[in-house]
Structure formats: structure tokens, C-alpha cells
């Protein structure tokens, strides 16, 4: 039933062939804001922020690493929320959102792992330790890849959307558990301390906040683009199957 309704509405949407993307003004504004914010934060990170007395230049990776890691986690929450609302409302736009967020999340998790590794090499002298945060990020990355692979294997079907939603919901509850259990596992092997928050000078906090806001804006802009792409892919795929049915 739901499927028939969906194809019906998609057909209706295609009545206007070259449709403008929804809310072009908001999207444009977001792109501009993200662009300005990124420039500003790059200036702040390299020229405004004080050089760390102990770590030196490599401490500046921190301003990239933290926002990227935050977005990697936020993205998984969006995937799970999109999936949950999809299961509840049966509205496929939420599934498109989940799929777009999964791709953006996979990219940001990769960036988190890379920047974290580079920073770790510079400060700890090692690319990788099996610390709770690092292990959880790695497993998050595996979950994103598994999600994307599952979706691509199952195709553009409601089965695929439901399976993805279930995976994302299980994952979003599992990730904190993984973090805690790796923490407990590590009790015997004390890991390197990343540093205590609260001891940061105000200018560092200011730059970090600026970087957080501008990276989030950039993420928002990217998410909108990816959402549009997923939506168009679904519409094109649906049209093609309709053509084949006519044949």
C-alpha cells in the first residue's frame, strides 16, 4: 500500500520536469556562511590561536580534529533519527536524509581518524592506541561502511530503507556501550591522557567555538547537497523502472 502511494507522489512531483531545488535561498545562504566561516576559522587557527607551549604547532590539529569528530558522531545520530522517523511515518524523505547523513558521516569519520592519527603521531609518538575514543571511532567508521554497503546491496527498495534504519538504531545505542566496554577493558592498561578540559585559555576556547560553528555550517551545506543527490538518484531510478515497465 505504502509503496503504491510513494510512486504516486513521485509521479506527481515529476509533473514539473526541471524543478528548482527546494529552498534555494536558504541553501545558498548556508553555503556562503559556511565558506566565510571556514576562511575565518582557518585564519583564526593559524594566525590568531596561541602556539601551544608544550606541543608546539601540532596542537593546531586540535581545532580541526574536535569539530570533525563532533560531526562524525552527530551524523550517526541523524542517520538513526532519520531511520526511526522513516519506520514510524513511512515517509521516504527521512530515509533520503538518513542515507545522505550516512555518507557525510563516513567522510567525517574518516577525517576524524586521519587527523587524530596525525595528531597522535606528533604528540604521543604513535599513530594508534587502543584507547576507548579511538576504538569507538574506528567501530563507528565500520558501522558507517556497513550501513552504506547494506544499502547499496539491497538497492533502492523499502526493504533496504527499513534494514538500514534498524542497523542505525542498533548502532546508535551500541556505540556508547562500546565506548564504555572498551573503557572497562582498558582499566588494566592505562592509556594516554588527552588532557583535561577547563584548563584551556580563553582564546583557545574562542577559536575552538568558531571552528565548531563553521565546520557545522559546512556539514549542513554538504548534507543538503547530498540529500538533493540522493533524492534525484531515487527519482531517476524510479523513472527508469517505469520506462522498463512500459517497454
Amino acid at each position, binding site marked *: 500500500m505504502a509503496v503504491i502511494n510513494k510512486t504516486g507522489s513521485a509521479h506527481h512531483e*515529476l509533473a514539473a*520536469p526541471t524543478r528548482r531545488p527546494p529552498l534555494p535561498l536558504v541553501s545558498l545562504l548556508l553555503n556562503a556562511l559556511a565558506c566565510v566561516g571556514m576562511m575565518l576559522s582557518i585564519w583564526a587557527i593559524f594566525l590568531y590561536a596561541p602556539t601551544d607551549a608544550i606541543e608546539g604547532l601540532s596542537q593546531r*590539529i586540535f581545532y580541526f580534529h574536535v569539530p570533525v569528530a563532533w560531526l562524525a558522531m552527530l551524523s550517526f545520530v541523524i542517520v538513526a533519527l532519520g531511520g526511526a522517523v522513516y519506520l514510524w511515518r513511512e515517509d521516504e524523505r527521512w530515509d533520503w536524509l538518513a542515507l545522505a547523513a550516512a555518507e557525510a558521516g563516513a*567522510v567525517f569519520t574518516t577525517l576524524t581518524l586521519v587527523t587524530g592519527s596525525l595528531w597522535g603521531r606528533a604528540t604521543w609518538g604513535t599513530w594508534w592506541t587502543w584507547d576507548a575514543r579511538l576504538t569507538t571511532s574506528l567501530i563507528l567508521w565500520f558501522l558507517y561502511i556497513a550501513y552504506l554497503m547494506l544499502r547499496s546491496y539491497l538497492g533502492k527498495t523499502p526493504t533496504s530503507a527499513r534494514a538500514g534504519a534498524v542497523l542505525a538504531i542498533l548502532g546508535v545505542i551500541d556505540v556508547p556501550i562500546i565506548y564504555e566496554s572498551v573503557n572497562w577493558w582498558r582499566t588494566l592498561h592505562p592509556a594516554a591522557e588527552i588532557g583535561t578540559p577547563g584548563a584551556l585559555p580563553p582564546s583557545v576556547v574562542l577559536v575552538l567555538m568558531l571552528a565548531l560553528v563553521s565546520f557545522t555550517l559546512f556539514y549542513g551545506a554538504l548534507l543538503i547537497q547530498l540529500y538533493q543527490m540522493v533524492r534525484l538518484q531515487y527519482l531517476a531510478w524510479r523513472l527508469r523502472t517505469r520506462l522498463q515497465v512500459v517497454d
Partner: protein
Amino acid sequence: MIYMVVAYTLVWAGLFAYLAFVSLRIRAVRTELAAVEELLHEREAGQE
């Protein structure tokens, strides 16, 4: 210092490569959608 510059360049190059990849995919799907719509219209016009 050189390590930092190389790392920074690599990460940003990777990000921009991804952005370029996304815009290419969007363009591809736009053209594909246009082509398929064209085909469908021709088909419907032929039927009437």
C-alpha cells in the same frame, strides 16, 4: 613543521577531492534525470 604542512595539505586535498566527486555525481544524476524525463515524455506523446 614540514610534517604539519604535508599533513594539512593532504587532508584538505582529500576533502576537496571528495567535494569535487560529489558535485560530479550531482551533475551526472541531473543529466541522467533530464534524459530519462525526455524519454518518458516522448513515450507518452507517442502513445497519445
